[in-house]
């Protein structure tokens, strides 16, 4: 076990009226518990509105849960901001448009003191090489790259801190199909090479099947099914999982 979510709930209150009284409660996540084994990939599947992204943000502590805690194996994750990284869905919004690629990559290296100033360029070059981007990208701005290339750069930035675990929040769903497959293959290679643990979030069960060892099905903020990937594909127990499977097989 490297990460464990224990009874996580997240409610958003809706405020209304002049005095900002609470008029309603959106239950984005309700009593979500799971654990992730080291070096494995947990797939989290659900439709839009099922609470996937909220869960991702809670796991990397960009948002606090209303109830419950996220636990880590202290022997594996000592510095949270370094050992746990996230890649977002929209590659067009997740790179700073005013920053050159090299500065985007230097930032995590400098924050966590992972490179001496002289080594920065070599480190950044290595990172780009690992994700299959030519090193002449260093001096350029995000606007000069396609969606797929930007997402590779985002992955390089996540790798810069030498993380143990990466949360991938729909990292490919805004891209073209062939690019999607190439990115998935890249992620699989990187996982082997850097001994990573993935939490892979997607609405596409086929993608989850391609990537994950175990799976967790979210519907309306609740876990409706979780377990071994192959077992669930063969014998889904919940009707919602069945309907997802049916549309995936089309």
């Amino acid at each position, binding site marked *: 076990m490297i990460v464990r979510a224990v009874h996580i709930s997240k409610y958003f209150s809706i405020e209304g009226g002049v005095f900002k009284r609470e008029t309603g409660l959106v239950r984005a996540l309700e009593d979500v518990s799971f654990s992730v084994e080291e070096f494995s990939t947990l797939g989290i599947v659900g439709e839009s509105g099922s609470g996937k992204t909220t869960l991702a*943000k809670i796991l*990397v502590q*960009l948002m606090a849960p209303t109830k419950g805690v996220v636990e880590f194996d202290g022997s594996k994750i000592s510095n949270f*901001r*370094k050992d*746990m*990284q*996230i890649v*977002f*869905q*929209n590659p067009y*919004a*997740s*790179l*700073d*448009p*005013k*920053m050159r690629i090299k500065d985007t990559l230097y*930032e*995590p290296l400098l*924050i*966590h003191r992972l490179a001496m100033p002289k080594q920065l360029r070599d480190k950044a070059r290595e990172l780009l090489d690992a994700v299959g981007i030519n090193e002449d990208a260093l001096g350029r701005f995000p606007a000069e790259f396609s969606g797929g290339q930007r997402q590779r750069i*985002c992955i390089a*930035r*996540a790798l*810069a*801190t030498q993380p143990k675990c990466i949360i991938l929040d729909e990292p490919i769903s805004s891209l073209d199909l062939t690019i999607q497959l190439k990115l998935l293959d890249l992620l699989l290679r990187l996982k082997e090479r850097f001994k990573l643990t993935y939490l892979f979030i997607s609405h596409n069960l086929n993608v989850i099947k391609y990537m994950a060892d175990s799976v967790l099905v979210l519907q309306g903020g609740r876990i409706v099914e979780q377990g071994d990937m192959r077992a669930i594909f063969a014998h889904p127990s919940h009707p919602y999982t069945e309907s997802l499977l049916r549309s995936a097989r089309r």
Partner: protein
Amino acid sequence: MNKLLLVGIAIIGFLSAAAILAPFISPYEPSLIDSASLLMPPSYAHPLGTDGLGRDLLSRIIYGARISLGIGIIAVGISLCIGVIAGSVAGYFGGLADSIIMRSADIMLCFPTFFLILATVAVLEPSIINIMVIIGLTSWMGIARLIRSEILSLREREFIQAAKAIGASHYGIICRHLLPNALGPVFVNATLGIAGAILLESALSFLGLGVQPPVPSWGNILIESKATLGVAWWITLFPGLAIFVTILGFNFIAEGLRKHWGYNA
């Protein structure tokens, strides 16, 4: 680079160069009184004519550029510093800090600024430094609001979340990610602010509460022309023209920058 921006930069560049090089290029001492040539119309010896004390108008306008441009730029510099800090703190941290900062900005906006400045200058003394500081202190609210609204919309963007996820500090996020992305429209606004500050100084001088004679500023040259307007049109026209061209130049730069960076606001 569009034409507007280039023309604006050319105008302001030319005026700034004149202001900086004033001692070398002005034909006379600005306060040299020549009783032999009072109220002379433009001529070869005095290209823009002389005023009622026989002082060379061209020299006075060139020296006046130092004062007027200096006040404009420094006053806006002060309001930019206050506005950017106040706006980014309010926008980034939100909550109580936001309420306090933005409510005080609202209060400041409720005062009739010009009378506030008039009153302050009347109580203190109308020195150049005082005028700069007062204009700066009373004009930061627009910039703060602008920065705050930019930061509010940037704050939820994914690259800010990503910066948090790699462990960047609040200071790092504001300075490295938020401000570079938020400053564009603010610079456009500030450029217009310089024009506004120059106008304000002229108005103060015109009321006798601005830069005090014999130091020449465009505003107080204009007021001295009041008495002789009927006989010496040039004393009114040329400083007025200087103010007009400067403001036009800053407006061109602002509009040009906006087009160059592609803002619609």
